[in-house]
């Protein structure tokens, strides 16, 4: 019963918006050709689902995110771990890392375009760089946050560096690493749209860009829906993975 009320309350606003749009359409309150009825959006949605344009573009974007995510994420993980463990390493590269981190990611686009061009390389580089910084930062903080007493356990047991890392440091910083991953996922997903908006001839960002130029509001909205849904699905997937890895801790608490 309570769940039902929650559900209904959550649907109130979306339904109101749809009704509002329908009313505007019925009574022809606007002459703007930009305005589309909910029905039209729905039809476009069905059309696009039936065809493969949407899925191809979505697939391309997802692949780009995946590659950039893996490359940037792995680099960030490695960099962050080393920076978290070694004070010497941190003292050398920490300041420049922090300086570069201050640059809003979108500001790198022009530089990368000049250096790498506007091909696939650009998109991957850009996405990877946006993934790198938050990943490195979160990992580093996670590793630094490993409690002294846990490390001392390792020291008492005379673990070597590798053992210390694999049995104590990495597991203990796993929650922070997952926080980083979640952050990275949403940032890379934004980055791919950005990269495709400025320089691409395929991908969901490009599809939106083209639809916008052709004033196809319905297509743009469907693309938005698709992007949001894909991002959301990936997020859930990541959450499941996190849940799987951290499940034993939850019980222990």
């Amino acid at each position: 019963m309570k769940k039902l009320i929650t559900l209904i309350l959550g649907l109130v606003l979306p339904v109101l918006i749809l009704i509002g749009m329908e009313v505007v359409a019925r009574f022809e309150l606007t002459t703007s050709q930009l305005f589309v009825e909910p029905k039209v959006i729905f039809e476009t949605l069905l059309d696009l689902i039936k065809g493969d344009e949407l899925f191809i573009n979505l697939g391309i974007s997802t692949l780009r995110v995946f590659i950039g995510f893996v490359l940037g994420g792995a680099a960030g993980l490695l960099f962050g771990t080393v920076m978290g463990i070694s004070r010497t390493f941190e003292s050398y590269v920490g300041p420049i890392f922090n300086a570069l981190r201050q640059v809003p990611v979108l500001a790198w686009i022009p530089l990368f375009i000049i250096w790498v061009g506007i091909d696939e390389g650009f998109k991957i580089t850009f996405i990877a760089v946006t993934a790198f910084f938050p990943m490195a930062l979160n990992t580093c903080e996670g590793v630094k946050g490993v409690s002294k007493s846990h490390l001392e356990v390792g020291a008492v047991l005379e673990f070597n560096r590798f053992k210390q890392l694999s049995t104590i440091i990495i597991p203990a910083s796993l929650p922070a690493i997952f926080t980083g991953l979640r952050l990275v996922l949403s940032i890379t997903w934004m980055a791919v749209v950005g990269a495709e908006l400025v320089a691409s001839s395929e991908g969901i960002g490009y599809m939106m860009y083209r639809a916008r130029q052709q004033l196809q509001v319905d297509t743009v909205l469907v693309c938005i829906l698709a992007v949001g849904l894909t991002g959301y699905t990936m997020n859930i997937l990541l959450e499941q993975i996190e849940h799987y890895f951290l499940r034993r801790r939850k019980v222990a608490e």
Partner: protein
Amino acid sequence: MDVNKEVLKLRGLVVPLALLAVWWIITKNEWVSAVFLPLPETVAATFVKLFLKGKIFVDLNESITKVAKGFLVGITAGFLLGTAMGLSSTLEKLFGPLFNAVRQVPILGWIPVLILIFGLTELAKIIFIALGAFYPMTLNTFDGCRQLKKEYLEVARVFEFNKPRLLWRFILPSALPSILSGIRVSMSEAWMLVIGAEIFFKTRGGLGDMMWEAKTRVQMDIVFITILIIGLIGFILNYVMKILENRLLRWRISN
């Protein structure tokens, strides 16, 4: 093992200086075309020239005005929605699902929609920036409003506090750390998005446009300088917010 602070600071300079040296050697020997990597001194000279000419202040002003407007609109809206949802579970159930659904769309995805609705106008850009600032502000405020521990609520009951005073004395102060970090995150988000807006909406004026122009004309020195300035301003904004946080949250510091 203990290296003192001075040494640590000096070490931080090693990598940047080495990079500078490499850069200088590469460009001096023309191993890389000056188009892709200008001489350090060219960049320095351009930097000085830009500031002397004063055009950069116009762009700077443009970007900052825009970000200020979008940011203020975004955090105000975020604060209101965040408190509303934090204080009333009915409102949370009403707004929460829509908010969370809309939030799933990467912010840059809204650009085509905004352009379609509002055209390439100032308003479109400000809404875009405001939207970016709105999400983290809402989330943080919402979170903050639920920070108040049950124990303190009992204190409020013992002193017969009414709703407004409960809000003012208990809920908002306990939410303040969260709200302030929301403001800080929103600010850096807004600062990134103003650059984004200037690039993606492809309109005149602002640092983002200056950068994009430089890219089109392959003026690498200007690209470098704009990145530097943008990064610097981002840093300063963040730093100022941190100081503000420390001042306002003095009560958190224990002896």
